């Protein structure tokens, strides 16, 4: 809006009529919110956990344990089994026996009902799981309570409904389960990734051996108690804990019919190499370096909110994070100003505090990696901005960070940082935006902000990404297929399509790499 109508610049003036009387209380320099901690009482932890095989907790044959911690306080929480190849073999055999002795031959409506039970139980025990998730992983309780838990329950609900309707999902293809699914999940959404894996696998009639991430096993172990409450037949779901070696043993085991892996691209490639020449089916959900594209006609304040949500949600530990901001040069300044101002209202701190927006970094290892990449950004010549924030003394923390003056070739624009670090680049035309957005070996997700409908569809058509978010970001739903192009992996999770990787069809090989 042009013209002098909005008033010339000048100091704020007190209303003259109010000089004579009126509120004389001093204006505060700050309004501190008092701590609002969610109570830990609801979680009852064991000192030590075995793996969950054939419906009960068993000690690892390896005899080895490691300690899992609370990354916000660097305090130990419990001892976790380090499963060796023997333990993996036991779990796979048990899963095979369960598959052959009845899981796949039970009426599909029964599988459906078990999954409904699990969904309901997750809803009932939602607060308990949310607190444990934040404690073990570092993500804010507001997110685990309002995003992770509801979505996890919803995934079980959704796939419960498909279990006895497969002939509608794949008409004329005579779908059948593959057998034993080996599943390896990451530490950024521990329980949610478990739900993404187990729900479709079971709905399709498979049995499961799942390995949670090394640093975040606790909600998976609590889930085993929930399986007991659901009365799920023993051996249908087996949870074995351990580090990368346990995962490798699972991938190699000949008794596994299908591998599903979510994690880094590097490990994904190693798995693919390992499985070459075998008949095992594979799906991979790997890393990303998503472009979040803002056009000059975007609803600005909402777009800035979308940028923030895209990279600072879950501390940026999100494979589909909008880690590259591609802003149209004509609105570069207002966007950056608004963004920097918005960052000053982000609250970083105790994950169990209900007001926390950004929690702890999941591990020392991840913190080091983020620090290394951020240092490289400074060295390569990018300009860094971090809002002033008070970080706690103990625990793993990283302030929300924005890099401007970034070139496409800088490491911070190429490599996945997996932390709360945004790199800003500019573009002039839609063609240039597409070119820059696609100029990466990754292809998991992308964001587009514009009020023009036709442009949303035009961009969606051209962006080489498995998920395109228009005027929103980081939206997930069990009905919506999720997965990548190029080095971000293959296969989809969610939706009707999410069943496909867990099924074999008439005469044809199962889908996947």
């Amino acid at each position: 809006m042009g013209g002098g109508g909005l008033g010339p610049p000048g100091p704020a003036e007190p209303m003259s009529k109010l000089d004579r009387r009126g509120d004389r209380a001093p204006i505060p320099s700050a309004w501190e919110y008092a701590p609002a901690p969610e109570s830990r009482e609801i979680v009852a932890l064991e000192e030590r956990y075995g793996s969950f095989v054939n419906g009960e907790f068993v000690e690892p044959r390896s005899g080895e344990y490691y300690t899992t911690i609370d990354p916000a306080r660097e305090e130990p929480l419990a001892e976790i089994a380090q499963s060796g190849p023997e333990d993996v073999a036991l779990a796979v055999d048990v899963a095979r026996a369960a598959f052959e002795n009845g899981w796949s031959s039970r009426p599909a409506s029964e599988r459906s009902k078990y999954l409904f039970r699990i969904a309901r139980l997750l809803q009932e025990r939602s607060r308990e799981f949310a607190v444990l998730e934040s404690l073990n992983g570092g993500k804010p309780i507001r997110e685990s309570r309002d995003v992770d838990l509801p979505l996890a329950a919803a995934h079980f609900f959704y796939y419960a409904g498909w279990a006895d309707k497969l002939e509608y999902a794949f008409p004329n293809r005579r779908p059948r389960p593959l057998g034993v699914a080996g599943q390896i999940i990451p530490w950024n959404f521990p329980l949610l990734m478990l739900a993404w894996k187990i729900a479709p696998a079971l709905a399709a009639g498979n049995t499961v051996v799942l390995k949670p991430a090394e640093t975040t096993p606790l909600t998976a172990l609590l889930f085993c108690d929930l399986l007991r409450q659901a009365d799920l037949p023993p051996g249908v779901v087996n949870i074995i804990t351990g580090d990368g070696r346990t995962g490798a043993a699972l991938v190699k085991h000949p008794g596994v019919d299908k591998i599903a892996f979510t994690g880094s691209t590097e490990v994904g490639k190693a798995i693919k190499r390992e499985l070459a020449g075998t008949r095992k089916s594979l799906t991979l959900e790997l890393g990303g370096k998503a472009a979040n594209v803002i056009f000059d006609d975007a609803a600005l304040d909402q777009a800035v909110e979308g940028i923030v949500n895209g990279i600072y949600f879950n501390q940026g530990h999100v494979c589909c994070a909008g880690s590259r901001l591609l802003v149209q040069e004509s609105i570069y300044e207002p966007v950056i100003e608004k963004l920097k101002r918005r960052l000053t209202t982000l609250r970083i701190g105790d994950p169990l505090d209900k007001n926390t927006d950004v929690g702890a970094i999941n591990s020392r290892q991840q913190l080091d990696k983020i620090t290394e990449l951020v240092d490289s950004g400074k060295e390569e010549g990018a300009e860094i901005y971090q809002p002033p924030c008070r970080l706690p003394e103990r625990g793993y923390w990283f302030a929300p960070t924005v890099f401007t003056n970034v070139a496409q070739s800088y490491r911070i624009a190429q490599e996945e940082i997996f932390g709360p670090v945004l790199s800003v680049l500019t573009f002039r035309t839609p063609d240039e935006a597409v070119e820059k957005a696609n100029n990466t070996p990754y292809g998991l997700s992308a964001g587009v902000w514009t009020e023009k409908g036709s442009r949303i569809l035009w961009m969606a058509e051209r962006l080489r990404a498995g998920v395109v978010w228009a005027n929103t970001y980081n939206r997930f739903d069990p009905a919506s297929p999720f997965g990548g192009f190029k080095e971000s992996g293959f296969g989809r999770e969610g939706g009707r399509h999410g069943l496909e990787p867990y099924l074999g069809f008439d005469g044809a090989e199962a889908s996947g790499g």
Partner: protein
Amino acid sequence: MAQAPALPAGFELPLEPRLPRIGSVDQVAVEERAATLAKRSIKREAKVFALELAIRMTDLTTLEGADTRGKVAALSSKAIRPDPSDPNIPSVAAVCVYPNLVETAVERLRGTTVRVASVATAFPSGQSALDIKVAETRDVVELGADEVDMVIDRGAFLAGRYAKVYDEIVRVKEACGEAHLKVILETGELGTYDNVRRASLLAIAAGADFVKTSTGKIPSAATLPVTLVMLEAVRDVYEETGRRVGVKAAGGIRTAKQAVQYLVLLHETLGAEWLTPDLFRLGASSLLNDILMQLRKEKTGRYQSPDYFTLD
């Protein structure tokens, strides 16, 4: 105070055909942002601070056909001393009444810190001729009103006659003299958040000291997302020109919890320097007692009963 010049009658603001293309707001995103801010958990000292501030920001309101001198006198006493049993409870910001009751309010509030706000301009509909609205404004200012709450002509706005809307605000602002002007957008009739943003910017351009959500006379009144949109418009004006315009949320704010949510919105959109009745008001009536009950609960640890708080 910056003033836009009065426009000659019949002048068509060159902006008029382009106004609809200014400032889109995404509904889903703005409602989500407001909902996330509403989840802030404000406890203990932070809550007491907020509740006391909310009292100081309240425009205690009575706008009924049945209002009498007696009613307004009682309301004014409540405004000065909301809780007779606790002298630490501050006075409210203002009492808001119809023109006929301005004299009573002025008399009762003389010498106190509580201001007198009067509605004017054919409140609540605004469907009268401009000269009547301007005359009404002059009258209430002469009778002693410190603040004037006017309504925009929504019919003209929705018909795209933005110059008329603008012109009216400019004229009423002139008639206000030293009284400060709040411009009521009646957001519940504007239909979209886009329109709320446009109307806010238009009102500010025409000289508003405050933009206000609602008359409280239609079912759809203040909401968190609507207020957020107005706060964002005010923020843009401040960033671009340094001029601070206030926001008043009115209608439908009945609970202390809601009041605190509005303050969180204000705090996280504009910053702590805006936490003052000079820049933010809550227009309400039954809200005050709910705040008092909450404050007493914070002090005593017990949930309260309305029986223990005077009606006026």
